[in-house]
């Protein structure tokens, strides 16, 4: 945080600045602005006014906002601009004004987006950048600090590394002796380096070497260098090899050393740098000792009361996400217990809560042991509580955590989640103002409604079905897809009465339009829903014949036009399930798949039997198994028709299929066809 009452002193911790300023009597804001705007007040008064303003706004968002509304930012930027171009006053006096106004601008930008916006709008960025080449070191310092605070905001413009002399300018920052200037250089990289092309260009320009050297510098240089190294190395194995390769991995060892630094922020940043390396190049940092160390350091950093404690769970999450070995390791190190202890303590900042739920979600993403442990530690209670938190990020993270725990089939079977205490707040979140919360809630609901305990009515009674149907018509394709996914899981293994209730709410016409949705994933889920609808008792098959065969016609049209294997597979299982019904059902499928007399265009099923996707070949073979079942009365005539269109040779092609499932179904189908003779007259 900037800054103390002294003109050019180092950045002070907020608390000391607050204490010193609270002892002084504070000028009225309007008076301050008046003094700053006046062109007649002597420079000493102006410097004092700037200093007063700075002291009032440090660490105080409310003050920042009220001064912002009074137009303080453009006023201060204008003072800075005049001071940098003026020749009227002495250089010393002008420099004092520049230093103070730069510090005020930095204060407005510090952790306050509205401030950053105002600072950028007033054109401060270019003026501050010019300060870096000033002869007066204190001016350079003030400019660099202010710029660094601006570049910490997402609102700051990206620095274009490829433009004109920008790379040279960046290198000159990194080469500077002033630690605030090198820190600024590193912050610019952290903020702006996003593409692999930028990462490569920075590596080629020698930036990585500079940053490695800065790792041995002051605290500011070390921290900002670690942060920008993480940005340059992120998901780029080619650049990482340039970092870890030279001098027998000296740079990597330096970063490993820094994970044991005495400053918590340095430890955190060093861990984050190593995580970036490991995530892109899993062959590095495979040693159990280093993996364990990373987990333990991040756990310990959770106790940090400040920003480090808030960021530590995010780093932990990124370390273990998608990596079962690390999840197992974290479980063995009691990470779940420790995270729950933090939740138990309560009064956590929203960001910290979000991070903890995301880390717990990652831990529970694959391992049943983790889910069981979290549930035994009141995990559901914490999640329930967080689902009504003020912060949308916390609500979404809680839902993501619930989604991952509810991957436990054992708990789904025990009805652990299908309780009003869980379902009521969860269903409420389907109407959340934040789309990401809605999507996260849909994710959890999709899993929970699989429920095998015939308690699906609990969900319907909570109003969940109505909401899902509503969201399945959303303009947002992600919401639509997740809603249909949940409906598909909801209709899995339900009784006929429940199916009727779902169908009544959802309607045939909505299902039809979902099957024809522009998004292939929505089509796939909608077809899977119909597949589940026609499973179970034979009576359910009637639904696809209702309204003049509308659903069945739509399914066959989609099968004929879609290209994505997953869509085709679900479509073929709809036909398989319908073909497992009575004669009327089998004949309908037969007519849809083989509508033309022999000699006409080849049936689509032949294409599927030759598909590269074994799952599609299997589904097609199952349809044929059901159509040729010898015990059904119309089998003979269907087999005769199938023979005429060349089914025997098609099946013979796959009776030695490399996929066992395809091979067995093809043999069954062929055997059934042969039951009626070999086709000779």
């Amino acid at each position, binding site marked *: 945080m900037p800054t103390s009452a002294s003109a050019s002193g180092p950045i002070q911790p907020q608390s000391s600045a607050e204490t010193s300023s609270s002892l002084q009597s504070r000028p009225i804001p309007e008076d301050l602005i008046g003094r700053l705007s006046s062109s007649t007040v002597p420079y000493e008064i102006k410097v004092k006014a700037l200093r007063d303003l700075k002291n009032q706004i440090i660490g105080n968002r409310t003050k920042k906002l009220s001064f912002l509304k009074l137009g303080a930012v453009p006023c201060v930027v204008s003072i800075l601009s005049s001071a940098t171009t003026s020749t009227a006053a002495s250089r010393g006096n002008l420099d004092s004004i520049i230093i103070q106004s730069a510090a005020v601008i930095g204060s407005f930008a510090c952790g306050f987006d509205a401030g950053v916006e105002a600072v950028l709008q007033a054109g401060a960025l270019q003026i501050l950048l010019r300060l870096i080449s000033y002869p007066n070191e204190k001016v350079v310092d003030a400019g660099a600090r202010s710029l660094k605070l601006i570049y910490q905001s997402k609102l700051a413009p990206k620095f274009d590394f490829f433009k004109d002399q920008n790379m040279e300018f960046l290198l000159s920052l990194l080469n500077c002796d002033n630690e605030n200037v090198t820190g600024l250089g590193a912050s610019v990289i952290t903020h702006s380096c996003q593409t692999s092309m930028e990462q490569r260009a920075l590596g080629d320009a020698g930036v990585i070497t500079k940053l490695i050297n800065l790792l041995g510098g002051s605290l500011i240089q070390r921290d900002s260098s670690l942060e920008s190294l993480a940005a340059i190395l992120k998901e780029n194995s080619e650049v990482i090899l340039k970092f870890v390769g030279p001098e027998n991995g000296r740079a990597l060892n330096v970063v490993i050393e820094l994970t044991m630094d005495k400053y918590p922020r340095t430890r955190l940043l060093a861990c984050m740098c190593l995580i970036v390396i490991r995530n892109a190049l899993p062959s590095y940092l495979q040693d159990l000792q280093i993996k364990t160390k990373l987990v333990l350091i991040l756990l310990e950093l959770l106790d940090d009361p400040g920003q480090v404690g808030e960021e530590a769970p995010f780093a932990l999450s990124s370390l273990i996400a998608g990596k079962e070995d690390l999840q197992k390791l974290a479980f063995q190190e009691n990470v779940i217990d420790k995270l729950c202890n933090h939740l138990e303590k309560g009064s956590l900042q929203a960001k910290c809560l979000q991070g903890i739920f995301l880390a717990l979600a990652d831990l529970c993403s694959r391992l049943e042991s983790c889910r069981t442990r979290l549930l035994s530690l009141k995990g559901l209670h914490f999640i329930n509580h967080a689902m009504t938190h003020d912060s949308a990020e916390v609500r979404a993270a809680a839902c993501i955590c619930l*989604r991952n725990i*509810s*991957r436990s*089939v*054992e708990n*789904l*079977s*025990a009805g652990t989640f299908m309780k009003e205490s869980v379902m009521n707040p969860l269903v409420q979140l389907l109407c959340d103002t934040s789309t990401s919360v809605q999507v996260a809630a849909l*994710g959890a609901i*999709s*899993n929970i409604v*699989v429920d*095998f*305990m015939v308690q699906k009515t609990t969900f319907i009674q909570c109003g969940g079905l109505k909401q899902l149907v509503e969201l399945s018509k959303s303009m947002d394709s992600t919401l639509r897809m*997740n809603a249909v*996914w949940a409906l*598909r*899981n909801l209709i*899995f*293994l339900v009784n006929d009465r429940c199916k009727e209730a779902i169908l009544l709410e959802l309607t045939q016409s909505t299902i039809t339009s979902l099957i024809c949705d522009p998004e292939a994933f929505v089509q796939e889920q909608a077809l*899977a829903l119909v*597949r*589940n609808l*026609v*499973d*179970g*008792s*034979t009576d359910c098959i009637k639904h696809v014949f209702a309204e003049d065969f509308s659903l069945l016609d739509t399914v066959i049209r989609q099968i004929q036009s879609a290209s994505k294997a997953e869509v085709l597979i679900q479509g073929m*299982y709809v036909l*398989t*399930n319908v*073909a*497992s*019904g*009575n004669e009327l059902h*089998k004949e309908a499928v037969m007519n849809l798949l083989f509508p033309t007399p022999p000699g006409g265009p080849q049936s689509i099923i032949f294409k599927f039997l030759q598909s590269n996707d*074994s*799952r599609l070949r*299997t589904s097609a073979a*199952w349809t044929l*198994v*059901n159509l040729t*079942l*010898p*015990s*059904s009365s119309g089998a003979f005539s269907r087999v005769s028709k199938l023979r005429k269109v060349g089914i025997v040779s098609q099946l013979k092609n796959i*009776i030695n299929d490399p*996929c*066992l*499932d395809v091979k*067995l*179904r093809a*043999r*069954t189908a*062929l*055997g*059934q066809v*042969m*039951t009626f003779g070999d086709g000779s007259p």
Partner: protein
Amino acid sequence: MPVRVTESSMPSQVFGENPGNTTLPPCTLLSVGQAFSGTQNVSSLQKDEAWRVNVRILGCDLDHGYLCGTMEALNVPMADTPVVTFWEGEIVDTKNYTFFTNKWGATSDDDIKHWTKFPSFSRLRSQVEIDGGKSLDLSNYPYIFMRWKEQYFVNVGTDCGLTIAGFYYVCFSCSDGSISGFYYDPNSSPFQKLELKSINEGRSGFSFSSYELQ
């Protein structure tokens, strides 16, 4: 009538070059939602007895060699209602699990004794005796061997007078979905046989439902 799959074409694939690293390929008849029905013979010296049994597959994670579902025993003498249990299965894929149980009170001798009761195990036996089958590649074998362990009672309390202390050695036929099993519990009658067939709830053919977890 299904075509008879000749077993003689299998051995070269069974003893493949890449054992222990591959999970078993999916088999549609052993997928979620599939239901099976049959009996468990619980005869003792005193009397002949068999319970009707229904099984449904609820979860399947081939990467982890995991399968689970429910088992419903219908005419259990001391229970007023059918007794439903939730079970979890270990699939012998030689990657996650071998033929040796190494727990639940079963020695490797017990394992061999039980597996040997399945005719389809005979061609694997000699290798299993050496290393539990670790070096076998079962990915193209038309039978899937599993152990099913009941975890809890779904609809009755633990005071129902029944036990789920033991576990089942199970052999599943990928061709027709038939299941054979033997219950193992040192404190119960030995070799209680479980026999199940794939059922289709009055349909004239096979039907498949599905869900997908996020």
